[in-house]
């Protein structure tokens, strides 16, 4: 505990960097996955190749991806951009299927009712399908958020600044304090991400509470 208080500033700066490396890809990944998931739902022929194809990205081990990306992107090995790109790929990998399935979970009769009320396809998507798909998309986003926070710490091996550096600090010196602080900080950060997504989902889906359905 004293170690933690003595190193509060380092913990804070690494936690900020960690949130950036895990959070920015989450937003970019969601923005990329929405149109891709929509395409997979709109054109059934694309569903299998899209969901399976993007899902394959998830099979690449993070350590391997961190190592390969500088070769592909032409970036420097220690550039944090490698981590951002890797985490974005993982987020897209997890979310394309979720978005496609979430849009598919909107009942046909609801869509027909909207069409009958004169909604154009675009308006129907933004006013009806997307809001109703939010609970399912959010469930996928929560998994992606928590796994992103955990995976970013692997960046330690390639020396990127984030909370994982406390793991190697503690390990190299045979000293438990930084290790514990690093792990607890990672878990707290993951739970914070989760809580924020839950809160936004709650605000975006007032009807879920009104009808007593599970979100």
């Amino acid at each position, binding site marked *: 505990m004293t170690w933690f208080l003595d190193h509060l500033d380092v913990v804070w700066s690494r936690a900020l960097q960690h949130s950036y490396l895990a959070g920015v890809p989450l937003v970019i990944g969601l923005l990329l996955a929405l149109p891709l998931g929509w395409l997979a739902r709109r054109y059934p022929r694309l*569903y299998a190749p899209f*969901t*399976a194809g993007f*899902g*394959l990205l*998830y*099979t*690449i*081990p*993070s*350590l*391997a*991806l961190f*190592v*390969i990306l500088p*070769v592909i992107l032409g970036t420097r090995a220690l550039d944090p951009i490698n981590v951002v790109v890797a985490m974005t790929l993982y987020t897209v*990998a*997890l*979310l394309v*299927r*979720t978005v496609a*399935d*979430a849009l*598919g*979970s909107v009942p046909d009769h609801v869509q027909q009712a909207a069409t009958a009320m004169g909604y154009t396809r675009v308006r129907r998507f933004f006013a009806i399908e997307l809001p109703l798909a939010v*609970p*399912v998309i*959010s*469930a*996928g986003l*929560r*998994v992606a958020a*928590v*796994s992103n*926070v*955990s995976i970013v*710490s*692997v960046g*330690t*091996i*390639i020396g990127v600044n984030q909370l*994982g550096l406390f*793991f*190697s600090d*503690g*390990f190299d010196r*045979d000293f*438990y304090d930084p*290790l514990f602080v*690093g*792990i607890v900080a*990672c*878990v707290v950060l*993951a*739970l914070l991400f*989760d809580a924020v997504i839950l809160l936004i989902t709650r605000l975006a889906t007032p009807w*879920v509470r009104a009808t007593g*359905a*599970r*979100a």
Partner: protein
Amino acid sequence: MINKTFAWLTDPSHWSGSDGIPTRIFEHLWYSALALAVAALIAIPLGLAIGHTGRGRLFVVNLAGAARAIPSLGLLYLMVLWLFPKISGDNAFLVPVFIVLIVLAIPPLMAGAYAGVEGVDPAARDAAKGMGMTGMQVLRKVEVPNALPLIFSGFRSATLQVIATTTLAAITGAGGLGRFLIDGQKILQYEQMVSGAIVVAVLALVVDALLAVVQRYAVSPGLTGRSSGRSASALSTQRSNTPLDVEIPVAQRTVDSQPS
């Protein structure tokens, strides 16, 4: 770089001996398989029990969520530091790796099992009870077969995560394909690192493809959309007849979070 990597991968001397690619693949698969087996023995019966009785669901869901948040690398370092003085020989490197992989594999396995049982059509369950089946018979003959697609989905997602994370075993001094990444980094031999990365990714893909084939033949045709007629599985709630090809944790959460 691509040429150098290709040269490294096709060099016959890298395909033999105790630090060759086949040996490392074998080590990698053996760590992964043992961890998955132990995790499955713990998680699947627990998941089935929760799905069947509906008891303890909230507790386990939260526990699994928290377990997902634990960074594998941090846990690995912690376990090595703690267990290394207590264990002798090679096991001092291996036991921490197994603990981390088991902790990693339990949440998706358990989620698949309980979401699968929970999602079974209540009419099917009622019919089985009406026929005079006991609780165990309902579980064994109705719930488990119906839950198989999601149990497999959890198993495949656990397998992918475990194979990817076994790469970290090399950090503790244990073997596996992570050795090429770690050793390559030490001597700054980039082509070795990239080759190792490629071999792990291919291994994960091959194992997942094999599991897809097993799933195809293990799951009842009535559930996969291979036969005509309305599917009684939980998947039908998503109005998708496509069997889940590549499984990711979201699949279970999606079913789990279906507004009902």
